[in-house]
């Protein structure tokens, strides 16, 4: 059936498209629900779940559960609440869920302050309860697609798969185009060269192009110039630095200058730089972090991932989950995740167990993370205080079998359990202890090989980096409650990334070469941001802003590494402190950011004319309108329009040359056009 749809679309002319979609929709519906007559199952999916979500979920959700009742899933409805059963299959008139809808019922639901359900809606609920088979209701629950725990099983909407060998960028575009057609969305036009070159520089190497770089790109007549630019940027050293500046906070979170210095000294930054420069497979990079026993000297920094967390296995587990599974697990420390039910408390403690035999040690070669061959058989208690063993069970369904000592049995820690045994005395060992059975290695194996979630998480993050928002948004909540906006695209991309050997540059190259990435900003009301039918404004990170500012104003570190009298590192840190966010859920400029731009004395110094910088050059330009044009070329990478030209030239005319130039540049650098990647 899948293959049948496409020719239909191609055969019909433009005018017939609408009816074609109807046919398509029907076909798809039948594909999803093979039975002919609508069952309680289909009714649940199509009407009941959305209806309960709209009218009841505010109070009867997993977290709130008013009167003990949670109406968010079929299973929870069957559990009932403090008033007993909510539904009795086949008997709507005896089921509270239906009875309480009646206006003369006490209690009456939804409560008075909310709109009551319409007759038709109540009728649907009645019919649904009526049709529920009485026997084995629990068994039916498991067949409801909404109870799929992984959130990965998706009803095919587009019903299309790229043929083998189709270029990845074309495949991505085709997925999106199909979705736009289905949703009747008209994508934005193609971004012009000036917009594209700025975007590509910012996204791939973390700064804007110089006026010269932008100018020569725009003038270039070659047809494949965008592809060539993408390749050139990916090959540059700035690419590795930019990726490190994104992935350091992603992996480690920002902890301020003191920790930044430690990470530099412990060669954590060097490890990341090298990983991105050499384009190491992403699963291999993650494996290095988990195992933390680097072999090559240039990988030494990898062990800092565990070491910085100072023996807190929980901190390691919480930091790793978004990277290897795409989810946040903090909530599951004390109980199964209340909203995303597939995230179990056992998954949290399983990850903790993977690291609870590890310990920071000092060796003669510097810091290391030793691992014991014994111990670490912990238990955790749920909210009902029931205790369970923390087995090596992980969110992706993988398990590591391990024999547990019998109750009362005391394990013996002996040298033959080790490849590198722990030191006997107090002297520093040459290497940290390495057991024959290493939980870290077992865990690394389980999550960096045949773990589709690792690929999904990375693909979604890189997508968000380039498109301003994840296919699942927010990026690290890839659970059942945050469905992807383009499920088939995400599935395919993740699969493709895995198939490529977790090739990060290839992924970036493919995405940057898509038509979708190269769209102009979506104008007017965005249909839905998850449609990606137009470029989304991305706020610049502190690092991007800092570097772009230097490029725009033509300021570079002097012989002593100072910019406008301040150490480059300090100046960059000041920006990062004000603009720390990466992948914001929703962007909002803050008061403090605005005050920083308005009143930073360093920024004032940067704008003052000095050897070779833009302000100095502008002062040598005679005409005010030419000064404005030159400023626009350097800061915005474009020509001013007549209105802007008039306003800005007028401003220059009203001020002394030096003050005018400084203030004009300040206004441009603080404006949205500069502060955003668009």
């Amino acid at each position, binding site marked *: 059936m899948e293959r049948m749809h496409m020719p239909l679309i191609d055969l019909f002319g433009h005018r017939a498209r609408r009816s074609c979609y109807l046919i398509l929709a029907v076909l798809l519906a039948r594909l999803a629900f093979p039975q002919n007559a609508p069952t309680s199952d289909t009714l649940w999916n199509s009407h009941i779940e959305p209806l309960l979500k709209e009218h009841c979920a505010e109070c009867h959700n997993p977290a709130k559960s008013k009167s003990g009742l949670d109406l968010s899933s079929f299973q929870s409805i069957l559990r009932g609440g403090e008033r007993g059963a909510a539904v009795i299959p086949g008997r709507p008139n005896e089921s509270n869920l239906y009875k309480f809808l009646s206006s003369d019922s006490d209690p009456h639901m939804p409560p008075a302050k909310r709109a009551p359900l319409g007759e038709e809606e109540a009728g649907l609920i009645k019919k649904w309860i009526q049709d529920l088979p009485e026997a084995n209701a629990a068994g039916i629950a498991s067949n409801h697609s909404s109870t799929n725990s992984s959130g990965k099983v998706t009803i095919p909407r587009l019903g299309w798969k790229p043929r083998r060998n189709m270029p990845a960028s074309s495949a991505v575009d085709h997925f999106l185009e199909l979705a736009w057609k289905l949703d009747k969305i008209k994508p934005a036009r193609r971004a012009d060269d000036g917009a594209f070159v700025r975007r590509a520089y910012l996204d791939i190497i973390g700064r804007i192009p110089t006026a010269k770089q932008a100018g020569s790109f725009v003038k270039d007549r070659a047809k494949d110039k965008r592809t060539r630019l993408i390749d050139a940027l990916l090959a540059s050293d700035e690419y590795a630095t930019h990726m490190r500046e994104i992935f350091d906070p992603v992996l480690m979170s920002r902890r301020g200058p003191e920790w930044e210095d430690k990470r530099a000294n412990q060669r954590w930054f060097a490890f990341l730089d090298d990983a991105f420069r050499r384009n190491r497979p992403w699963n291999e990079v993650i494996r290095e972090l988990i195992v933390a026993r680097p072999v090559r000297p240039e990988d030494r920094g990898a062990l800092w991932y565990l070491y910085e967390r100072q023996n807190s296995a929980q901190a390691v587990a919480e930091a790793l989950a978004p990277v290897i599974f795409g989810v946040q697990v903090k909530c599951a420390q004390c109980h199964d995740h209340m909203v995303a039910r597939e995230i179990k408390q056992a998954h949290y403690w399983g990850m903790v167990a993977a690291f609870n035999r590890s310990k920071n040690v000092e060796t003669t070669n510097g810091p290391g993370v030793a691992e014991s061959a014994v111990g670490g058989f912990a238990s955790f208690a749920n909210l009902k205080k029931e205790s369970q063993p923390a087995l090596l069970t992980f969110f992706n369904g993988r398990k590591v079998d391990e024999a547990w000592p019998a109750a009362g049995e005391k394990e013996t820690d002996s040298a033959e359990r080790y490849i590198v045994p722990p030191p006997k005395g107090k002297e520093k060992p040459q290497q940290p202890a390495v057991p024959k059975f290493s939980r870290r290695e077992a865990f690394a194996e389980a999550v960096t090989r045949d773990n589709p979630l690792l690929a999904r998480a990375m693909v979604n993050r890189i997508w968000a980096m380039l498109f301003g928002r994840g296919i699942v948004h927010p990026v690290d909540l890839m659970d059942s409650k945050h469905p992807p906006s383009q499920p088939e695209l995400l599935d395919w991309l993740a699969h493709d990334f895995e198939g490529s050997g977790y090739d990060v540059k290839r992924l970036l190259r493919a995405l940057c070469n898509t038509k979708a990435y190269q769209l102009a900003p979506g104008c007017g009301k965005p249909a839905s941001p998850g449609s990606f039918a137009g470029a989304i404004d991305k706020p610049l990170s502190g690092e991007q802003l800092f570097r772009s500012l230097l490029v725009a104003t033509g300021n570079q570190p002097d012989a002593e590494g100072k910019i406008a009298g301040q150490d480059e590192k300090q100046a960059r840190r000041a920006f990062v402190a004000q603009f720390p966010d990466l992948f914001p859920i929703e962007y909002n400029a803050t008061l403090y950011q605005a005050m920083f731009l308005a009143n930073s004395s360093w920024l004032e110094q940067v704008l003052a004319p000095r050897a070779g910088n833009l302000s100095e050059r502008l002062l040598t330009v005679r005409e005010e309108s030419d000064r404005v044009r030159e400023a626009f070329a350097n800061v915005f990478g474009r020509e001013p329009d007549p209105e802007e030209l008039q306003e800005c030239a007028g401003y220059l005319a009203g001020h002394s040359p030096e003050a005018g130039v400084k203030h*004009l540049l300040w206004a441009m650098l603080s404006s949205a056009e500069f502060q955003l990647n668009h």
Partner: protein
Amino acid sequence: MRDPFSNLPDPACGGVDHTLHRRKFLQGMVGTGALSLISWGGLFSLPAFAEQAKREQKHCILLWLCGAPSQFETWDPKPGRPTGGPFGSIPTKLPGIHFGGLLPKCASIADKLAVVRSMKTSQNEHLQAIDLLTRGAPPRPPFIRPALGSVLAHQLGHLDSPIPNFILLDPCPEGNEFKEFKAGNWAGWLGAQYGPVRVGGEYKIENVQRTADISAEDHQSRNALRRFLTKKFENDRHSAAASSQNAAFERVKGLMSCAPLFDLEKLPAKDRERYGPGAFAQHALQARHLVENGAPFVMVANGMPWDSHVFHNEIYQLLVPELDRVIFNLITDLETRGLLDRTLVIAMGEFGRTPWINHARGRDHYPNAWSLMMAGCGIKRGVVVGATDEDGMEVVEKPFNEKNLFATIFTALGIDPYAEYDLPELPTFYRVEEKAEPIREVLA
């Protein structure tokens, strides 16, 4: 103290129209049916309306005596008892009521104060107790209940006010557990916009000062040019991000115009002398000044000086007279300015101190029976509630906990204490849990 704001123009933000409570507006205007006729901007320029709103604006000053003050030397003296300490007690303006001997000035205005002598709480470690007594309920991770200041900023303030809705005057970065608490999340589930703006001592509002390199006119004109460019970008692309930037810069203008309010040097020397030296006293004066200019909530703290595990008497000989002077001046000033009925003043810490003296001649933590003081908005004048036994070991009359206290504060300020927080994916939380009763005896 260094003056970070000296090169700013004079206050442009004393205007009442900046400090109006938006909800008050809506209530008032919907009543008259005029809302549809007058533009929002127009509303602010109606002088009569602004005047009324000013009259209704309520404030709260929390004198946060962090480290936990001793009840014996303050509100619940036990003269002549082994636990009483050397400072004795003095009669107050209220017949039969004595305060600690180091509080003569407070004794003279006892008819304006309300004292609770029967606080009984359950946390005896600073961090947990600070958390409990500033948020009003025990923690329930991972949810973070907003601190009192954030709730009041949310309820009494309005987001586009140029003057911050929650001001924390705290010069001291240290203070062990208090330091840790300060680094945490004050605003909790209300969101960061209701968190404190921290000022005082080394803490100035960063970048609020215009640099010396630019004149006020140029600062303004270049911002107008920035706004023009951003507005154009916003209009061309319907960019929400751009509009949020323009909004942020608007707030900068407001806050910069308020900066002189934070300048102690601008306050009359006479006032500064009356309150006395030291950051705590000067900040209390500043709190009065901020409230006069519309700030809804000001918290005055000073590290953790009250934590007297060692040399208790020696330390309290310095601290209590300062507190006496500060409370006396603050209450009298608010009264003479006609602000006391609209301003709730609270002086409290996170628990009390032990009846017994330890080996280091200090008093340790004691949440079992302790005292606090309230006065002003919604509070009965000249009342003492609850009692402890003769040695101050146990509460023998009307025990109250943090929930009772918070119910009292909210009720006094006309805020529904039992309102439910209606936020997505949040379990059912109330402003005060378990319908805890307010301390009726102190409510006006």
